[in-house]
């Protein structure tokens, strides 16, 4: 017999009932999974920094990209339980298909997953590069952060010898933190700003952030550091420029 064209085969394929049903289920599950994207952002709260905006954007994008993948798996799983299942405890009377694989499907799957991977990668690298353009930014205010068991303290080295266990930051100004520890590993995490870096003994690690919202946010230690790890937290107060200066002066610092 003469070979049939690929388009005819595809047309025949898409006419099959089970293919149509799986497709409908695919669309359904994709939508359900996609609904998680706004839920995630809601749970994370309003983004308090440029970095957190990137994080929430990325998670939303990844969720939308993951939705069809998850949807496909769920669709096949659900349909197989509905339509291809042999009822009861006894062995099925009939066999399933004897197909041992399908070259085009395998290749397509590899290509699509590689493509998705490339997109994820490019997106991720682009976001990282963005975060690093601030590296040469001379305007970043430098604040030293010291973690010890179980208190964070901050040295506002550009404003004299002000030291506090609370962090005050002026809004919309980039900050560079030099973070270190005097004992074990801690992790300096400004939760709503989506930035984190470990505090290690004997070395200084850097973290940049630009706060964009005025308000009070949480700083939590994110690396188990012993007895009172859960109590090792403090607040960051993001205030206007004027309020920041006022606080500095009140604590014996200078402009």
């Amino acid at each position, binding site marked *: 017999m003469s070979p049939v064209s690929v388009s005819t085969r595809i047309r025949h394929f898409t006419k099959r009932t089970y293919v149509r049903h799986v497709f409908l289920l695919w669309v359904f599950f994709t939508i359900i999974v996609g609904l998680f994207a706004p839920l995630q952002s809601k*749970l994370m709260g309003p983004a308090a920094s440029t970095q957190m905006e990137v*994080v929430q954007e990325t998670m939303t994008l990844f969720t939308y990209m993951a939705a069809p993948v998850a949807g496909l798996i769920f669709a096949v799983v659900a349909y197989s339980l509905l339509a291809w299942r042999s009822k009861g405890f006894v062995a099925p009377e*009939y066999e399933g298909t004897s197909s041992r694989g399908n070259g085009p499907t395998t290749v397509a799957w590899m290509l699509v997953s590689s493509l998705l991977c490339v997109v994820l990668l490019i997106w991720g690298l682009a976001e990282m590069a963005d975060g690093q353009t601030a590296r040469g930014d001379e305007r970043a205010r430098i604040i030293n952060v010291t973690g010890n068991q179980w208190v964070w303290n901050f040295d506002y080295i550009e404003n004299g010898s002000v030291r506090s266990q609370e962090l005050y930051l002026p809004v919309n100004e980039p900050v560079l933190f030099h973070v270190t520890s005097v004992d074990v590993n801690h992790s300096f995490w400004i939760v709503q700003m*989506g930035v984190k870096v470990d505090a290690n003994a004997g070395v200084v690690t850097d973290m940049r952030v630009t706060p964009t919202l005025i308000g009070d946010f949480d700083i939590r230690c994110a690396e188990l550091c*012993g007895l009172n790890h859960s109590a090792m937290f403090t607040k960051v107060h993001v205030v206007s420029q004027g309020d920041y200066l006022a606080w500095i002066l009140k604590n014996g610092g200078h402009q």
Partner: protein
Amino acid sequence: MRKLNVWTGIVFGVIVAVAAHYLAKRYIPMGADETGTVLMDRVVITTMFGWTLGFMVGVGAFVGPYRWMMNRDLDHDDQMWLAGKDAGMARYFRFTTDHKVVGIQYLVMTMVLFAVGGTMAMMIRTQLMHADSTFLNNTWYNTLVGMHGIIMIIATIIMVSGPFGNFVLPIMIGARDMAFPRLNALSFWLIFAAVPVLLSAPFLGGISTGWTAYAPLSTQAPAGMDAYIVTIIVFAISSAVAGANITTTAVTMRARGMTWNRTPIFVFGTVASVGVAIPAFPMFMASQIFSGLDRTQGAAFYDAANGGSGWLYANLFWLMGHPEVYVILLPALAALLELTPVFSRSPLFSFNSAVGGIAGITGLSMLVWAHHMYASGWAPDLNGPFMLTTELISIPTGMLFLVFIGTIWRGRVWGRLPMLAVYAMLFNFLIGGLTGIYMSDVPVDYALHGSMYITAHFHYTLMGGALTGMIGATAYWFPKMTGRMLNEKIGIPAFVIMQVGFNVTFMGMFLVGLQGQQRRVAHYDKLFENGNFISTMGAYTIGFGALMLLYTVITSWRRGEVASDNPWGAKTLEWMVPTPVPLENFEVPPVVTSDPYGFGGPDAYDLEYEADRRPSDDLETERV
């Protein structure tokens, strides 16, 4: 030799431990500038190694080498005795070389470890039910978190390769036993020796680190940390021995005619898993040896003030820690891949892709470790490359998903418990895997690292994926290993209850993780209270389901319905031998002529395909 068993092992272990303790206290010097804690660490470590050595001697682990040195090598009767011939139940309580006995021993050990680790989980979740709970103090909470972690990690590492890699794999390849039967028993009894050592940690002051035992906090930790160190060193030896055994067996002892193309996928998964473990676990062992030296000898491997670095520990640990999750996952997935064709009555979809997927995961797993260290500040410039390798690993993992759904596609699905485990795994591991992709993105990881989101992710993959796979494997091979069918009238409801509880628990953790709760905290902000309460209720549900499942296993084992030789109609070699399996498995070594996936037949759509067929198509046509 014939008088040695687990009881003589325990007695001798205790004697040597006490002697070692006394000698250590008496003779180990303490430097002028050292304090009592250092001496205590030295004494504790000496005592624990004394126990381990004494137990291994007492249980008869060294009988073989000893007799060889004494020129009274074991003769055939001795070896038959060692293999447990005609010994009844007693052979499970001594150093027995028969791989089937070792498999059962591993199965019981795994269940015990899960019970202990699971109880600890109940304690942890009870504490976390309220934001200001006073159930446990911080020291005990941190200890339980660390103990739960390491017990579960050890249990999940051995849970499929131990019971089924030992019992099933040799029969599946047509062999009479494993390549090194005495090493096989050795690997089991080493773990048995290590368990009391590990469980003594809470009574020695506990461990203040999590299961990752990060330095330099581990240097500061109380004497319980020494128990952890000794356990890991012993466990690393056990897994190295087991790894050598499984690899050699699979490579050299396959039956005639069993080419690699006809080798069941379970063999590939198990060999890949130990293949990854062999280079990885020595890193863990080294990290703990250095930690022990820091604690007892003032070595400064991890002490920055004296030239060391905490990052050395982190690198050594994660060089183990990442491959290790694939050590956990691969055998479980491979077991499910093995049983899916049987329960879909359809061949494995693209056997070559399954092997390729396993190989890809294995290879890439050694290249991704520093994604656990994105936020550590160690090498920010390497974050990009590690993000690349980590995201690449999603490709071979995706191939395995394709094989699963491809096998199910147009199959005839038989909804017994092993197959339900496949479905549960597909659901759970998908969620776990996709959330892993989020975390592989560096900026997102800066937000999520160290939060409960991570905890939820790895429970979804290791528990929802791998442990579910082990439950499926247990249900599948139960008739062959115990001679009875696992009662599914209670087993399936138990399994469903566990899965529902599991998803409630860990979805709750994703929730609070996104809201900003850190890991390993005994108290948390009021904001997270609702999510934690939901998680705790889910955890109690898991507990109920797990206990129901344990009840099912115990009652089925004792008086379940007697199983036929091949109740599932499977085609791998272990189902071709009688149940109970004879001592040497095969009377005549089998000769293999095809792969074990010859299921399936034509259905209505196949007739339609006739019209679409290309003349060059093979006998095994491609159907979509």
